[in-house]
């Protein structure tokens, strides 16, 4: 009887087993970071809800990117182009809605479409031409940044619209901008955070409730075996990168709305933070394992870490050293988890 065996396991081994799961490891890391925050609470700032609300807002854009990154990494890939595609989407969204005055749904839909197309393009290059994901998305990272600069003319797309005679016309930010950068529930939660949570749930449905999810894990675990068992590997890879592009576009729209402008430089180096979030959460870069909940925890760990350093006004050099050390520490913890578990 399984239940009987479970009873006989004893407390110590059961705790050991608990602690061996990546989910618990991530929760332990998060608790440690929270504990640091409670000690170094900056005159009680850390103990106020506002601080947590702001942290959740800040991490949302990274978190949305990390959702797509998780799908790609589970399939044993990597997407370095997320920051650039975010920048491109932010520019396009600002351009469509502020300069062309298109209706909100058209701007959103158009930006999302471009995001999916750019992602799927990377996926297509990887799947059809057997280019390594690192190289293909590195190319896309540079290419998409170029497109963003070309479309915007190298300048931020803001509420100042240049008229043909050289003067500026100042337009009001469209309602969609104000909506996305607002807060609901009595000002206690930002819309971008709600969007982040929605993306997490969306990914959970894909990974845990559909064939697509099973296929992605299978491809990440052993691509050849997946192919032989009849999984459409090429199509699934294109889908994974296409979805990553979709999340980049969502993040780009959030970024543009919060900054009230489309910055062609937006999102540079975000790919690194995003990969860090996924890996700290406990999803392995080798693919085939991991979950979206780990990525949610990874986002919180990175978000709280940044927030604690920021409210304590820690100097830049200490911040970099601490962040680097904690990233490696958290990942080492996770590595042991997999070995033991």
């Amino acid at each position, binding site marked *: 009887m399984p239940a009987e065996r479970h009873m006989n396991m004893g407390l110590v081994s059961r705790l050991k087993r608990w602690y061996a799961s990546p989910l618990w490891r991530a929760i332990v890391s998060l608790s440690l970071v929270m504990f640091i925050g409670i000690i170094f609470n*900056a*005159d009680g*700032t850390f103990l*106020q809800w*506002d*601080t947590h609300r*702001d942290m959740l807002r*800040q991490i949302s854009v990274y978190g949305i990117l990390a959702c797509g990154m998780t799908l790609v990494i589970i399939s044993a890939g990597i997407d370095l182009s997320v920051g650039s595609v975010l920048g491109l989407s932010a520019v396009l969204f600002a351009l469509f809605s502020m300069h062309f005055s298109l209706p909100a749904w058209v701007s959103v839909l158009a930006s999302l479409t471009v995001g999916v197309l750019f992602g799927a393009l990377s996926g297509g290059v990887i799947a059809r031409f057997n280019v390594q994901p690192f190289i293909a998305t590195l190319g896309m990272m540079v290419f998409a940044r170029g497109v963003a*600069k070309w479309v915007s003319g*190298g*300048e*931020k797309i*803001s*509420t*100042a619209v*240049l008229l043909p005679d050289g003067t*500026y016309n*100042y337009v009001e930010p469209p309602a969609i901008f104000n909506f996305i*950068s607002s*807060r609901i529930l009595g000002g206690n939660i930002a819309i971008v955070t709600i969007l982040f949570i929605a993306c997490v749930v969306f990914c959970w449905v894909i990974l845990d409730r559909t064939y697509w999810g099973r296929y992605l894990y299978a491809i990440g675990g052993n691509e050849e075996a997946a192919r032989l068992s009849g999984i459409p590997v090429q199509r699934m890879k294109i889908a994974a990168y296409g979805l990553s592009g979709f999340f980049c576009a969502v993040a780009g729209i959030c*970024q543009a709305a*919060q*900054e*009230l402008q489309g*910055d062609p*430089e*937006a999102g*540079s180096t975000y790919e690194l933070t995003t990969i860090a979030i996924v890996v700290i959460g406990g999803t392995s870069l080798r693919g085939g394992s991991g979950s979206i909940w780990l990525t949610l925890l990874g986002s919180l760990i990175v978000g709280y870490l*940044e*927030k604690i350093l*920021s*409210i304590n*006004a820690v*100097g*830049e050099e200490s911040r970099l050293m601490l962040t680097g050390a904690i990233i490696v520490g958290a990942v080492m913890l996770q590595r042991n988890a997999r070995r033991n578990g």
Partner: protein
Amino acid sequence: MLYRATTNLVSTIIFSAFFIFTGMAQKPQWTIGMSQCNLGEPWRVQMNADVKKEADKHPELRVIFKDAQNDNLRQRAHVEEFIKAGVNLLIISPKEAAPLTPPVKAAFEKGIPVIVLDRRVLGNDYTCFIGADNKKIGKAAGKWIVSRLGGKGNVVELKGLMTSTPGQDRHSGFIEAIKGSNVKVIFEADMKWLEPNARREMESALARFKEIDLVYAHNDPGAHGAYLAAKAAGREKAITFVGIDGLPQEGQMYVRQGILSASFEYPTGGREAIQTALKILRGEKVSKEMTLPSRVFTKENIDKGGEWLKE
């Protein structure tokens, strides 16, 4: 066969188009090489635009632009390419002094006049340096802030990258100006010139301090990020925001919209570079050092084009 015929046709069209165009345009007398260190910053995009705008007024000039994408060695290669191409004059806005001194020196020794824009090179092997003084601007901002606050208040300072000279100078000039007054910096953070970082740091400052009178940011996007953070907290009306750079579509626009109370111009010198280049090419004498004057933009003077800062 068909393939070859098509390529022939295409190349004929391209070549004839090329000759027609070059024949039509007046042949420029002088070629200027413009080596820009990083077009990833709006301020430098503006610098190139200023150079182009002024050069377009003079058909005898042709300017070739190169962007080093924030890489010393790439910029070095660009200067060497310009020397090889035999440009008549070189304008360079170097990324860093030490690595770019040798190629600039090489050009200068080959007899190519060199105008150094904004950031310096080491030694004296160039024709003319054009730039503004960040420390003076920081000081002017500090003085303006002291008088605006009536000599007393709590200030948040959002610093540019503190390993860069503009960041250091905008900080030290400011500190010098507020010394002796009761203006206190209660929170400072390095936002590395980036708006999202500025917003994040400002949120921390707002959470921690209930009384903030003014935000001094080392660039306008930083001040704008701080404004957005204060607005989200419903505290933007109680705080004055001051930035630096004063670009038309950034700082000047924010002042016009009432977001910033003041923006201090950090002039690009693009226009002055072309004017000086023309003088040099015509054989006129120019001074070795040219410090650009700077303006302050406020709600009151923005429509009159700002007010020049006094020395």
